[in-house]
Structure formats: C-alpha cells, structure tokens
C-alpha cells in the first residue's frame, strides 16, 4: 500500500480508481485462466484431480445397481477419498503447482516484467493472479468431486437418487464443494505467498505439508494457523479414527462451522495482504534457478 493509503485510508478508498482496477483484474484473469486451464502443461492438474473420478467411474461400471457394495460403504469410501486424497494430497499438490507457477513460472519464462511494466498496481496483479488460480483450482477440483459423488451414488439407481435428493446426499455434496472451494482459497494463498518469498518454494512447501499433516499434535492456538484445521471440521462425513489416520481426521478441540469459515477466510486474506506487501519489493532478476 502507498504511504497515502496508510496515512489517509478513507480518502484513498474514496478516490481509488475502482473501475480501472476491475478492468485490469479482468484482463489478468482472462490471460491467467487461459494459461491455467487450456495450456498443454495444465494436463497434470486434470490428471491429478480426475484420477479418483475415473476410479469411481470404474467402480460404478463394475457394480451395477450396487451389486457388490452398499450406499453406506460407498459413502465411507467417498469420505475417505475426499479427506485423505483430495484434502491432504490432491488439492495440496494441485494448489502448490498452480499457485507457485503464477509468479515463479513467469520468472522462469522471463515474462514477469511485462506485467511490471504495465500501468497497474502490483497489488492488483496479485489479486488478479490469485483469483485466476482460485477459480481454476475450484473449477477443476470441484468438478472432479462432483463427478466422484455422482459415480458413487448413480449406480445404485432409485436408492441412490433417494439418498441424494431425499436424504443427506445433497447436503453432503454441498459441504464437499464448500470444503473444496475453501481448500483452494487457503492453500492457494499460502503457495502464492511462498512463491513470492522463496526462489524454490517446494522445500517450504514440504514443511507446510508436514505442518498440515501433523498440526493436530500442536497446541490449539497454533492449530488455528493451519488450513486443514478448519477444513476437517467442515467435512460432512467423518471417517473412523484408525491408527495413523486419526492424526489426519480427528479434531481435538473443534470449532463451530460458523467460526471455521470466517477463520479460514481471515487466514487467507491475511496471507494475501502479506503477499501484496511482498510484491512491492520484488525486483526483476532472471537468473536461472
């Protein structure tokens, strides 16, 4: 933020060129969404996201009318897949790859200076890129979760439809999609910030992975600095704590969903604000890393 913004925020916000910023964010969104969703190098995120969907599809094909399984079992399997694969690994690595690329990739391709030479605040650039990454990951992982859910219940026929539309199914789907969106928001903010701080954000990313995996052994105050802490509590179906899995799924001191969502939003916004301050100091130096 400029010194004027800090000294007189009311005046700054009143005189801010919102229309220009909106136009610029849209321009950045268009460019970045195309890169994130339609380029050949984005194939990996589709493979990562839709691999479980393919598995569920095969399962649905091999179990017509639920011949070898039950709705309860498939609900448990879906919950297991979501909490262990999607939350812990899939969305984590997906966001790591996509959000890290937003700025680090531009430095590798030596094209970041085109953005820096535009009459655009760097904070606007950060917000535009973050939104593009957030929309891309939410769309891809949201679609794959939806597909998994569909395949999980579709092959049960009328029983499946009843479970979804007249039972808890729709509520569970909404929760899964909400958690997906919030996970993309939280992890995205973390990796965007890391990519602005570190030349090689993968090693700090591994530290984040370890923290997200084992934060439940930390004091409860520290746990609030973890994205998974909030997301675990929003998962619609709990999976039984079984050995090491308890570390990933059990919440010792749960908070209400009405606090978990704003909590995660606050954490993400705080990280983004830090990223906006950080990018102002970024200089163009295209040494091969």
């Amino acid at each position, binding site marked *: 933020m400029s010194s004027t913004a800090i000294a007189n925020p009311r005046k700054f916000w009143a005189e801010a060129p919102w229309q220009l910023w909106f136009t610029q964010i849209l321009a950045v969104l268009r460019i970045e969404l195309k890169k994130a969703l339609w380029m050949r*190098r984005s194939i990996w995120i589709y493979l*990562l996201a839709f*691999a*479980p969907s393919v*598995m*569920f599809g*095969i*399962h649905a094909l*091999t179990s017509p009318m639920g011949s*070898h399984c039950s709705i309860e079992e498939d609900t448990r*399997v879906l919950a*297991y*897949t979501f909490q*262990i*694969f999607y939350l*812990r*690994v*899939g969305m984590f*690595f997906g966001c*790591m*790859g996509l959000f*890290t*690329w937003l700025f*680090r*990739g531009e430095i*590798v391709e030596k094209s970041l200076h085109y953005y820096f030479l535009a009459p655009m605040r760097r904070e606007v650039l950060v917000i535009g890129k973050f939104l593009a990454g957030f929309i891309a990951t939410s769309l891809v992982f949201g679609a794959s979760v939806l597909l998994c859910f569909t395949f999980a219940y579709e092959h049960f026929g009328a029983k499946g439809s009843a479970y979804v539309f007249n039972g808890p199914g729709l509520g569970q789907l909404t929760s899964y999609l909400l958690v997906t969106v919030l996970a993309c928001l939280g992890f995205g903010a973390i990796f965007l910030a890391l990519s602005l701080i570190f030349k*090689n*954000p*993968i*090693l700090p*990313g*591994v530290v984040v992975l370890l923290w997200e995996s084992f934060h439940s052994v930390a004091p409860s105050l520290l746990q609030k600095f973890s994205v998974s802490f909030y997301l675990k509590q929003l998962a619609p179906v709990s999976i039984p704590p079984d050995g090491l899995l308890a570390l990933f799924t059990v919440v010792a001191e749960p908070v209400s969903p009405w606090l978990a969502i704003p909590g995660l939003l606050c954490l993400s916004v705080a990280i983004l604000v830090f990223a906006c301050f950080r990018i102002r100091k970024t200089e163009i130096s295209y040494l*091969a*890393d």
Partner: protein
Amino acid sequence: MAVYKRTYKSYKGALTPAWSRFSVLSRYGLSTLFESRPFTAYTVLCFVPFLIGLGYIYFINNTALLQTILGERVGNGMPGLVNNDWFLGFLGIESGLGFILAAWGGPGMITKDFANNSVQLYLSRPISRTEYLFGKISVLASLLSCITWIPALLLFFVNAGLRGHGWLWSNLWMAGSIILSALIWIAMVSLISMAVAVWVKWRIAATALMLGVFFLLPALGLVINVILHTQLGALINFSQMISMVWMNLFRFSRAEMPSHFSQIPLWMAWASLLSTCAFCFWLLDQKLRAREVESK
C-alpha cells in the same frame, strides 16, 4: 578476397580418450552441486547414520566396553542384532536421506542446462545424448552410492572383521544384496530425477514432481485400493515395490514381510520397477533433444 596465406591450422595435439569425456560433465556437475553450502551441509549430515552405525557395531561386538561405560544394564553379547534386518534398516534410512538429496540436487543439473539454452551447446560438441545423460546421472549415482551401499559395505566388513571369518562366510551373500538393492534404488531415483527434469524443464516443478511420484502416487494407490477393492494400487507405490524387492534380496520370507506385501506377487513388484525405468528411458529419449520446434 583471395586466400593466399594459409596460416590457419586445426588442432593436431593430444586428445583425451573418447570414452572418458562424459566425466567432464560429472566433474563440473559435482562441483556445481557443492557450491551450495546448504547442500554440502546436508550431504555431510547423510553420513551421520553411518557414524552411528559404526559406533553401534563396535559396541555390539565389545559389550564388555559397553558395560564399563553404561554399567550392568547391558546383556552379554547380542550376536544376532547386526543381521539382514539391521542392514535393511540402515539402507532404508540412508535411502530416505538420499531421496531428499536426489530431489534437491538432481533435477537442477539438467533444468539449468535447458534454462540457459546450453543443451544444444553440449550436444553440438562430439558428445552424444547418451554420454550427456550418463555424465549427469553419474553425479547422482556417485553421490547416492557414497551414502548407501559404500558405507553399508564398510559396516558389513567392519562387523565381519570384529566377528571373525565364520560370520563373514556365512553372510557373504548379504554384501551382494546390499550392492544390488542400493543399485536398484539408485537407478530408479536417478532415472526418475532426470526424466522429470527433461519433462518439465523447471527445477521447482521437477522437484515437486519427484515428491509427487513418491508421496502422491502412494496416496492415489491407496485410493484405488479402497474404491476398487483391490490391492493393485500398490503397484504405483514405488516405495512399497522397492521395499518388497529389497526384502526378497535380503532373504526375508513372506511371513516376515508386512501382511499387505503378500497381496502382490514379487514378479509384479519387479515389473513395476522395470517398467518405470523403461518409461523414464523413453521420456529421456523423447525430450532430451537440442532443438524444439514450435508448431504454428
């Protein structure tokens, strides 16, 4: 302009042997890696288990000394402890440390050449793609050898020296197991490291992909097993496949292996590893080229 002063002469002096020229890449690759102080410090750290193992073997074979130091709590001789299980555990620890070494230093050796457009410079010299690749892989292979089978063999012979010829002759097969197990692991990790590097051409993405191969794929394998009620998802869990092959080489019986290992036949584990290596070779053949044609 007429050429009338033919004073230019091409080089006619001595040349180094053609077979050894790849070692230029290895030498410079190693020196570049060790320019990084954190990397050097971490490599030194990788030798700590060897030192601990050395101390352990010494005290196990000198329990009287240990009793003197620690008091009467130590029992009389524990001859069975330094066995195949022990060496397997040592290799496991060192391979874990070595994996981080490979993920940290391996991809950068090739990605930097792509980033600096120097691949075509190398390949325009009288050096082939195979020699280039061999030169790069030998850096990783030598580093990983120095922290896996070489110290393990040293520990083996130290233990043999302290225990006597009887132990050595009855356990000589273990030396072969150590070497073969480590070489299989080194080949896998080195090939995957080089393959991801030439595929994504960006060190950070290559490191992330390596982490993904060894952490993400097991999770996916687990999901496959859970959803499809099968055990074949373990075939993409390379850590498990390597562990199975190692346990077999170290002559563990099926009963001694973890229960989920017995669900997969050994030949499938070998096939999984070999096909991964083959895929890496194919990827290297496709991507390690000096030119890139941009389609219109």
